[in-house]
C-alpha cells in the first residue's frame, strides 16, 4: 500500500469544528426541501388513475432506495481512500456513513412493503429491486458488525474497507442476478418497476424529496463523524480542552 501520509492535511482536529459549523446548515436546508417536497407530493401531484392515492408513498420509497445505494458507494469510496492512503479521517467518514445508509435501506424496505400491501395484497414481494435492497441491508450490516468486532480502530477500518470494496463490486452483480432470477420465476407483472406513468409534478416531487434526503444524510453523517472523532481522539489534548458545549 502506498504510504503517502495525507493525514497532516485532513486531520480530524481541523475537521471537527468545520463539521460542527456545516451540519446545522445542511439540516435546515434539508427541512426546507422536505417541506416543499411534501407540499408537492400531497397538494400538487395529481391522483394516479391506477393506484389512487397509495402511489404517494413513492415520494419517500424511491428517494430512500436511491440514497441507500449512493451512500453505500460513497461509503466504499471513503473506505478505499482510507485504506490506500492511511488517512484516518476518510475511514471515519466511511464508518459515519454506514448507519445512515443502513437506515435508508430499512426505510426503503418498510415503505416498499407498505406500498406492496395495498397494490399486490402482500407485505413482501420478491421483486428484483426490493430483494436487492434487502441484500444491500445485509452488506451494510456486514460492514458495521465487522468493524464493531475488531477492537483496534486501525485494523477495524482497514478490514471493514476491504468488505466495503468487495461489496461495492458485488452490488451490480447481485442486482442483475436477482433481476434475472426475478424475471425467470415471477415474470415482470408484480415488479415495482412499473411506476405509474410519471406526471411532471410527480417527477419533480420525487427529485425535491431526494435532495431533501441528500441534505439530511450529509447533516447526520457530519454529526456522527464528530462523535467518531471524539471517541477515537479521546485522549488527545485538543479534545480535553474542548468546552462542554463543543
Amino acid at each position, binding site marked *: 500500500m502506498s*504510504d503517502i501520509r495525507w493525514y497532516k492535511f485532513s486531520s480530524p482536529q481541523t475537521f471537527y469544528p468545520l463539521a460542527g459549523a456545516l451540519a446545522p446548515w445542511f439540516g435546515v436546508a434539508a427541512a426546507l426541501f422536505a417541506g416543499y417536497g411534501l407540499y408537492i407530493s400531497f397538494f400538487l401531484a395529481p391522483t394516479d388513475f391506477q393506484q389512487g392515492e397509495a402511489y404517494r408513498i413513492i415520494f419517500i420509497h424511491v428517494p430512500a432506495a436511491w440514497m441507500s445505494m449512493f451512500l453505500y458507494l460513497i461509503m466504499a469510496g471513503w473506505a478505499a481512500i482510507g485504506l490506500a492512503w492511511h488517512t484516518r479521517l476518510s475511514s471515519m467518514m466511511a464508518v459515519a456513513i454506514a448507519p445512515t445508509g443502513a437506515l435508508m435501506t430499512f426505510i426503503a424496505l418498510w415503505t416498499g412493503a407498505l406500498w406492496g400491501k395495498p397494490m399486490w395484497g402482500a407485505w413482501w414481494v420478491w421483486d428484483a429491486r426490493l430483494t436487492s435492497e434487502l441484500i444491500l441491508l445485509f452488506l451494510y450490516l456486514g460492514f458495521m458488525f465487522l468493524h464493531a468486532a475488531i477492537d483496534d480502530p486501525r485494523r477495524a477500518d482497514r478490514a471493514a474497507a476491504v468488505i466495503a470494496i468487495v461489496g461495492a463490486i458485488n452490488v451490480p452483480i447481485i442486482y442483475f442476478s436477482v433481476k434475472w432470477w426475478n424475471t425467470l420465476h415471477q415474470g415482470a407483472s408484480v415488479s415495482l418497476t412499473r411506476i405509474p406513468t410519471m406526471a411532471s409534478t410527480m417527477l419533480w416531487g420525487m427529485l425535491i424529496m431526494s435532495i431533501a434526503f441528500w441534505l439530511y444524510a450529509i447533516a447526520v453523517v457530519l454529526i456522527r463523524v464528530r462523535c467518531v472523532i471524539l471517541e477515537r481522539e479521546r485522549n488527545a489534548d485538543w479534545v480535553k480542552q474542548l468546552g462542554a458545549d463543543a
Partner: protein
Amino acid sequence: MLSANDLECVRGERRLFSGLNFAMQPGTLLAVRGVNGSGKTSLLRMMCGLLTPAAGTLNWNDREIGKAGEEFRSNLLYLGHLNGLKDELNAAENLRLSLHIAGIAVDEAQAVAALDWSGLRERRHQPCGTLSQGQRRRVALARLKLSQSRPLWILDEPFTALDVASVERTRDLIVDHLAGGGMVALTTHQEVPITAPTTLPIELGA
C-alpha cells in the same frame, strides 16, 4: 543494507517508541532490549514488513520495504515467537516445506543434516505435535542452519526454551553468519554474549 528513519509504533492509544533511527550494514548485530510490552516484537515485525509503522520508513538498499517487496523478502529470514510448524507433519517435512515456500530448495539429505545439527536426527520422523516446546524450537532453529544464503536474519527470542548446548550452537551459528557479512536483528532476555563486527544496541521503553 536495512535502514530505519524515525520509526514510530503505536499500539491502541499508547505510543511504544518513536523517532527510532538505525542502519544495519553487513556484519551488524542489532540487539533489541527492553521490558516486556516495550515493543520489541513490534519493532522486529515492522522490520520484516508484517506491521506497518505509525510513522517513519524502513528502507532495504534505499528502497522502501513495502515497495521492494519480493526483492526484500528474498533476502530475509524471520523467526517469530511462533515456530511455524505443522503438528501433523514430521520435523523433516516441516523443514523442507517451509523453506521451500521461503524460497530455499532443500533436499532430504540437507534437511536431515540440519536436524542432526539441531540434535533431533533420531526424532525427525515424529510428528511435530508430539515434540516438546524446546524440541519444536530447535526444529525452527534448524531453518537458520539452511538459510545461510539469506543476509538478513530477524530473530525474536531465539534462545527461549533452549538447553545450554542448543544456546551455544545457535550462538556460534549467529556469530559465523555475522562474520560472513550477514546482518542479524534479535531480541533476547538471556545475556548471551555475541561478538559481531559492529553491534547496535537498541533500548526500548527506557
